[in-house]
């Protein structure tokens, strides 16, 4: 019984797992939306406690929005494009690392405050489900691992041994996944912190549809474009006369 060759593990982790997670993420979300609209909510605990929430929640959410924008930048924009635009590599990394570190620390500080509030405020804690606890653990791990990648890269850059650039490894793999050409070799070449962060991130996305995180899909952008007062007509009741007959064979 010899250990499987490393390239098989890499293939499973970076070639197969992303698609499994994607299927769970999309399928789970569709399933949840179809069968659990009533459970689709922020499950806010502000009624119980407002003082800490008003600091922690904006800190976390706004930090997270910057983090997401940063991920989009770093993962989706190929290195060649920024170079063609005349952005020096060093400058790009300084901006990315500073912005990433600030946003990451805000997000981590926010989530730490929220978790602390959740644990210490009696009513909030008793409204916390096991599902919530698992979700928080994975979420905090993902943020910690992400910050670690940022700090390790920054440390390596400062020490002058900036040999590994995630835009040559992780980003290439990530873009490849979407065009059904996962560059397993590129991802395998990334360093350990990036591997850990990517795996925890995949776990978070797999959990996503089954937790309160789904409220992120309900970001009410439409509010900006609708009239203030909404009128709706009463739902038509299905009656014997109007209901389409469903036959077993059709």
């Amino acid at each position, binding site marked *: 019984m010899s250990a499987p060759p490393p390239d098989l593990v890499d293939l499973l982790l970076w070639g197969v797992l992303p698609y499994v997670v994607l299927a769970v993420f999309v399928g789970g979300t569709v399933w949840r939306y179809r069968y659990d*609209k*009533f459970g*689709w*909510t*922020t*499950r*806010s*605990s*502000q*009624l*119980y*406690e*407002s003082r800490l*929430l*008003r600091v922690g*929640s*904006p800190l*976390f*959410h*706004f930090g997270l929005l910057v983090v997401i924008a940063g991920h989009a930048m770093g993962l989706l924009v190929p290195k060649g494009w920024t170079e063609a635009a005349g952005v020096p590599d060093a400058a790009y990394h300084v901006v990315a690392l500073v912005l990433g570190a600030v946003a990451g620390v805000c997000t981590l500080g926010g989530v730490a405050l929220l978790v602390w509030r959740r644990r210490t405020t*009696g*009513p909030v804690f*008793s*409204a916390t489900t096991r599902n919530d606890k698992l979700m928080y653990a994975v979420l905090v791990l993902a943020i910690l691992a992400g910050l670690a990648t940022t700090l390790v890269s920054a440390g390596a850059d400062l020490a002058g041994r900036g040999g590994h650039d995630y835009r040559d490894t992780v980003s290439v793999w990530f873009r490849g996944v979407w065009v059904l050409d996962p560059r397993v070799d590129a991802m395998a070449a990334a360093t350990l912190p990036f591997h850990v962060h990517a795996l925890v991130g995949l776990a978070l996305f797999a959990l996503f549809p089954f937790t309160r995180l789904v*409220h992120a899909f*309900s970001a*009410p952008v*439409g*509010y*900006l474009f*609708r009239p*203030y*007062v*909404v*009128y*709706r*007509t*009463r739902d038509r*009741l*299905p*009656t*014997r006369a109007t*209901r389409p007959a469903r036959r077993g064979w059709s």
Partner: protein
Amino acid sequence: MAERIGRVMAQVAMVMNLDKCIGCHTCSVTCKQAWTNRSGVEYVWFNNVETRPGQGYPRGYQDQERWKGGWRRTATGRLVPRAGGRLRKLATIFANPVMPAIQDYYEPWTYDYENLVAAPLGDDMPVAPPRSLISGEPMAITWSANWDDDLGGGEELGVHDPIVRRLGEQVRFSFEQAFMFYLPRICEHCLNPSCVASCPSGAMYKRAEDGIVLVDQDRCRGWRMCVTGCPYKKVYFNHKTGKAEKCTMCYPRVEVGLPTVCSETCVGRLRYLGVVLYDVDRVGAAAAVPDEHDLYPAQLDLLLDPADPEVAAAARRDGIPDRWIDAARRSPVYALAVQHRVALPLHPEFRTLPMVWYIPPLSPVVDTLTGTGHDGEDAGNLFGAIETLRIPVAYLAELFTAGDPAPVTAVLRRLAAMRAHMRRVNLGQERDPSIAAAVGMDGDTIEELYRLLAIAKYDDRYVIPTAYGVDDADRGAVEEVACSLDFEGGPGMGGMGGRPPFGEASGRPDPVGVETFHALRARQTSDVRARGGPRRTNLLNWDGNGRPDGLFPPRDGARDRREDA
């Protein structure tokens, strides 16, 4: 001239006659039993009765400097929610800056009843200590939805009433000088609802057919902006489901022509339900008039006269059924608010155009008169007292007319004139036309108002057209559509020989009620015939005769035989 009238909509509206409210809280309790007797909404009262002066529920909700409810008129004459427009709402979506905490309502509790039987033997009688329903911990009860009922703690607590603070030092709470009345409150089902405007998800809506404001539970995402947006604080957050809930105007009852639970059970019979027609195109302009004192007249001006043939034509043009137009003509709400001008909106200065109207109480005036030895039914005395008793009038004006005493005085004078006029009638004295003339009415309209306020029967107080196009004669008893063979003893009766003549199962089927509405609907729209199954029998209604279904569990053989038959 039909182009003069914009889009016509119908609204089911309510009037409450505050002189008749005895503060018994029956409306609150029956509403609670019907709608909010669930976990997550323990602290929620869709209907509450508060003592004025007092803080109300939640505490001090009328203070919009603090709670930011309702609309604000900008310098350019536009209306934006006081808590902020669309961008500001989205910017503060991660933590609502002005959401009331559970303590602003009250922390709901239960009692540890087990202690009564499980306490160790001792010298003292065991008690059931209170336990918080929020945290489950032992708690000291320090506040509830009606802690300052009947001016409880008047001197200490009454001064926190936002209206008392605005009026300054005039309102006294000492026993000799105090006045009080009860204010039952439900959702106002506003024409310009700021809760709906505040909902980022678009889950809240005003129903086009009857104006009832509802929360779509499948679309609510728990952003909590509606709680802030409503200046009456009548949208609540269910902390178990994470969704907003509010008074539904008992729409399953109203749809079948039944009054709301609070109206049905009102001991004082002080509630009136009826349809008003309004011009929805003019709502925005009416809510945005510059002077707050003009809001009440502007709101009255929105309501269309259903007796006007042009209005009826416009209503028909906009798809309002004829029986709704007919109901609007008989509407007690239109009669009291527009024709007799005795019902006023609650806090028009919030600019939401509320549709629950109040007849302000004359009782503080009458009580003061009789308390000082004067004749409280003499028109001259009453008119003089209304002019003299500045404080109750100023207080009522802050509640109902944005602080303008003139409309309140006019209403109170009408009520006083009715009182004096009817005293003469009851004593067999000659009618004095000068009494009615002093308030711009005549004897006939005064007696009409008297009939509506004093002796109106159930069908006069609740004029509710049904939603489903059934004939008005079926009101209150929309029966299950049954098989045509279901006559007494007919083959459709399952071979049981017809309904037993006595017992619960005798007589006509139960009318639709909130309790049976959904079960009935499910049965009516189901493809399969309802199984006999175990039915519940209320033994309190059983007269000892016959054997109602469900009195005994069915024997297996018996059920098989019935299906064979």
